[in-house]
C-alpha cells in the first residue's frame, strides 16, 4: 500500500504535488478572507478555456525534438491577422470567428513553413532561435499594424482614420462566440462549455494524430533523430510538419483566447505570450522532448489557477490593491520555477 502511494506520487511528480497543494490552500483560504469562491472557480475554468489551445500548440514541436515553441508569437500573429481581416471584411457574430480561422490558416501555414525551414538549419539551438523569431516578428508587425490598409472604423485610430488601435473590442464580433454555446450558469459559476468542447476537440485531434503512423514518426524523430533516419524517415520533413502544426495551433489558440477575453490586443501584446504557455506545459510535467495532452490539461489548470488565485487572496488578506504587482510576481515566479524544472527532464 505504502509503495503504491509513493509510486503514484513519484509518477505525478513532487513539484506538481506542491503546486496542487498550494492551489488547494488558496481555494480553502479564499472564503475566509472574503473572496467569493464560486467566482474564483469560474475564473479558473474560464482562463483555462482561453489558454488551453495556446498550451496545446507546444505539443507537436516538443514531440519532434524542436523543443518548446518559444516562437509562439509567430502563430499568434497569424491569428491576429485572421481576426482583423475578418472584421475588416465586415463579418460579425459567430461568422467572424469562422472566417478568422479560415483567414488565419494560410498565414499560419506560410509562416510555419518559413519558421520550420529556419529551425531545420540550426538543429540543436532551436529554442534560442525560436525566441528571437517570435520577438522579431512581433516588432515587424508593430510597424505593419500601422501601415496595412485597414479601414474598419471599429479598429482604426479615431483621429487619423488609419492604423490599428492597440486594443480592439470584439463586441458585436466574435466576443464569447464559443463560450456562449451550451454555456452553463449556476449562481456565480459560469462554465464556457463551447470553448471547453472546442479545446477538447483539438486536444483529441492531436492525441489521435500522435497515434497515427506520421505521429509515431514525429515522436521517434524527437526521441532519436539518428534512429528515425536509419528507419527511412525524412527527419527534416517531419520537423517541418510539427512546426507548421504548432504555428497553426497558436493561431487558433489566440482566436480562442480573444473570444473569451473579448478584445484583440495588437502591437507588443503577443511579445510575452509564449512564456505562460511554455511554463504551463512544463508545470504540467512535460520535458523538453516529451509532452502529453495530460501535461497540457494539468499544467494549464495549475498555472492559470495560481495566477488568478494568488492576487485575489493576497489582496483580500492585506486589504490593499496590489493585484497587478502580485500577479506579475506570481506569474513570473511560476515561469522561473517552470524553466528550472526543464533541466531536470532534459535529454540524456
Amino acid at each position, binding site marked *: 500500500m505504502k509503495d503504491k502511494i509513493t509510486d503514484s506520487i513519484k509518477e505525478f511528480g513532487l513539484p506538481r504535488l506542491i503546486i496542487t497543494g498550494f492551489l488547494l490552500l488558496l481555494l480553502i483560504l479564499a472564503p475566509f478572507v472574503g473572496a467569493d469562491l464560486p467566482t474564483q472557480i469560474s475564473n479558473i475554468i474560464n482562463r483555462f478555456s482561453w489558454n488551453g489551445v495556446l498550451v496545446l500548440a507546444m505539443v507537436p514541436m516538443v514531440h519532434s525534438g524542436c523543443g518548446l515553441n518559444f516562437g509562439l508569437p509567430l502563430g499568434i500573429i497569424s491569428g491576429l491577422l485572421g481576426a482583423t481581416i475578418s472584421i475588416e471584411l465586415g463579418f460579425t457574430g459567430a461568422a467572424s470567428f469562422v472566417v478568422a480561422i479560415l483567414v488565419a490558416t494560410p498565414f499560419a501555414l506560410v509562416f510555419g513553413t518559413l519558421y520550420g525551414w529556419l529551425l531545420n538549419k540550426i538543429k540543436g539551438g532551436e529554442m534560442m532561435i525560436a525566441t528571437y523569431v517570435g520577438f522579431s516578428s512581433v516588432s515587424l508587425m508593430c510597424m505593419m499594424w500601422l501601415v496595412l490598409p485597414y479601414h474598419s472604423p471599429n479598429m482604426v485610430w479615431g483621429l487619423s482614420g488609419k492604423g490599428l488601435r492597440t486594443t480592439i473590442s470584439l463586441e458585436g464580433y466574435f466576443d464569447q462566440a464559443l463560450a456562449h454555446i451550451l454555456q452553463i450558469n449556476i449562481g456565480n459559476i459560469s462554465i464556457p462549455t463551447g470553448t471547453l468542447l472546442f479545446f477538447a476537440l483539438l486536444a483529441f485531434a492531436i492525441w*489521435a494524430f500522435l*497515434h*497515427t*503512423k*506520421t*505521429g*509515431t*514518426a514525429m*515522436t*521517434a524523430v524527437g*526521441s*532519436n533523430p*539518428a*534512429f528515425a*533516419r*536509419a*528507419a*527511412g*524517415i*525524412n527527419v527534416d520533413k517531419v520537423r517541418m510538419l510539427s512546426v507548421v502544426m504548432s504555428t497553426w495551433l497558436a493561431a487558433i489558440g489566440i482566436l480562442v483566447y480573444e473570444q473569451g477575453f473579448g478584445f484583440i490586443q495588437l502591437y507588443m501584446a503577443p511579445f510575452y505570450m509564449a512564456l505562460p504557455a511554455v511554463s504551463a506545459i512544463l508545470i504540467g510535467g512535460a520535458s523538453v*522532448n*516529451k509532452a502529453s495532452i495530460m501535461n497540457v490539461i494539468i499544467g494549464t489548470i495549475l498555472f492559470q489557477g495560481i495566477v488568478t488565485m494568488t492576487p485575489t487572496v493576497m489582496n483580500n488578506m492585506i486589504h490593499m490593491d496590489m493585484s497587478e504587482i502580485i500577479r506579475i510576481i506570481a506569474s513570473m515566479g511560476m515561469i522561473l520555477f517552470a524553466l528550472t524544472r526543464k533541466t531536470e527532464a532534459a535529454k*540524456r
Partner: protein
Amino acid sequence: MDTVNAPLLKLQGIKKDFFGNQVLTDINLELRAGEVLGLCGENGAGKSTLMKILFGAADIAETGGYGGDIFLDGEKVSFSSPFEAIAAGIGMVHQEFSLIPGFDATENILLNREPEKYNFISEIFGKRLNTLDRAEMDKRAKESIEKMGVAIDRHMMINTMPVGHKQFTEIARELSKEQLRLLILDEPTAVLTEKEAEALLDSIRGMSERGISVIFITHRLQEILSVCNTVAVMRDGVLVECEKAENMTVASITKSMVGRSVEGRTNNAARTISEDAPTVLKIDKLWVDMPGETVRNVSLEVKKGEILGIGGLAGQGKLGIPNGIMGLYEAGGNVEFEGKIIPLNNPRACLDSSFAFVSEDRRGVGLLLDESLEWNVAFPAMQIQNKFLKKYLGGLIKWRDEKAIRDVTGKYIDELKIKCTGTKQNARELSGGNQQKVCLAKAFALEPQLLFVSEPTRGIDVGAKALVLDALRKFNAESGVTVVMVSSELEELRATCDRIAIVSGGRISGILPAAASVEDFGTLMLKDVV
C-alpha cells in the same frame, strides 16, 4: 594486523546493495604487490561496482555506501572520493575515455599535475599564475610512455588519435603518477586491435615487474590467461572462483562465468552453400566517406542465402561498407540487388528494397532509448512496410495497432530471450546484451531479404554473445535471408559465417571460406593496412 607482510590490497566481506537490490555479496580478495589479477564475469556480474567501491566513486556513497572492509597495506581505508583513492596510489583507466580532446597527449598525461615555472608575475600574484614547464612536462610524459612500453606520439592531439592510442594515453597518465601502486584497467582491450592489445599485455607484464599491482578486467579470456597471476570470476555479485592462472583454461573460466558450459563452436562444417548459388547483391567500386572507417574501393558479391562475414582491423573500413550502402554516410559506386540498382545516400530506398541494418552504434542509431521496447521493435516495420497499422477512412488514417505491436514484441522477447520487465519497459533500462537483441528483433520484424549486422557482439558478455549469434544463424536458416555480418572478432566470424571477406585499407584484400586457417586471415588483414 601485521603490516609488514600484509598484502597490498585486501577486500574483506564487501557487500553492496542498490535500494535493496543486492549486487555484491561477501567479496573476499587479496592482492600482493606486483600481482596481476584478472577479473572476469558477465555484464552485470558486479565487476564495475566492485571497482567503483575500491576507487571511491561518488555514486557508491550516494547510494548508501558499502559493507565490509578494504585494507591497503594492512591499514583499513575507506575512500569517499576518487581523489583520496588516487592519493593512496590507486589508478583507474575507465572504459569511457576521460581525456580532453583538444589537448595533446602530453598535456593530458600531466593534466593538473604539470611541473611549473615561477615567473615575475607569479612572484607577485601567487602560484596560480605560474607558467607550465613545457620541457619538464615533455620529459615526464616521455618517461611514462616509456614505462608503458608502447610508443605513442606524445604531441598528437587526442581528437585525431585512433581509439587505441587514446587508451594508451590514459594508461600513460596513470603511470606518470609516482605514487601509483595499484592500477585498475576496465576492459582496456575492447577498443584495441589485436596487435595493440598484445602491446598492452606486455606493458602490464612490465608494470608487474616494477611492483605495480594490476587489476585487469576484460571479456577476452585468452588475454587474462596469458598475463594474469590470479584469475577471479564473478557471477551475480558473488566471487565464484579465485584461482592461480595456471590452473585455469578458457573453458573453465567460461563455465564458472555463465554457470553453465558454453558449447564451443569453432566451425560450421554442417553448412554448405553451393558454389553456384545465385548472386543476390553486387557491390561495385563502392566508396564511403565514414570518418575513421573510410571505404576506398570495394567490389564484392554476396550469394543468396549465405552468411558473409566482413572482418579486418579497426579503422580499415569494414564498418563503412554497411553504413555506406544503407545511406547513413556519403557514398558512391554501384550497388545492385537482384539486378536492380540501389540508389545510394538514401536510407529509405534501401529499406524499401527490403534491406535491414543492425547498427554497430547501438545506443546512438540502433535504439530509441527513451521509448518502450514495443516502439523499438515495431517502428521501422511500421514506417516502411505499413505493418502494425489499422486503416480507417480508406487508408487516410493509419492508426497504430497497439495490440499487434505488443504481440510481435512479446514474440521476439520470448524467441530471443530478452530479459525485461515487459514490452513497455524503456530500452535504456536493459543491459547491453539485451539491447542488442532488441536491435535484432527490430531488424527481424522487417522480414528483410538482406540483413546487414554490424558488430553484433560488441561490448556484450559471453552468454549473450552465443544467444545473439545463434539467433542470427537461426534467422538465416529459417527464413533464408542473406546476412552480411561485420565484426572485429575473427573467431566469431569463423564460427558463424560461410565465407569471410577481409577488408584492409578500404579495399577487400581477399575472401576465404570460414574454415581457412587463422594465419591466412591474419596475412590478409595486414595486406594493405593504411
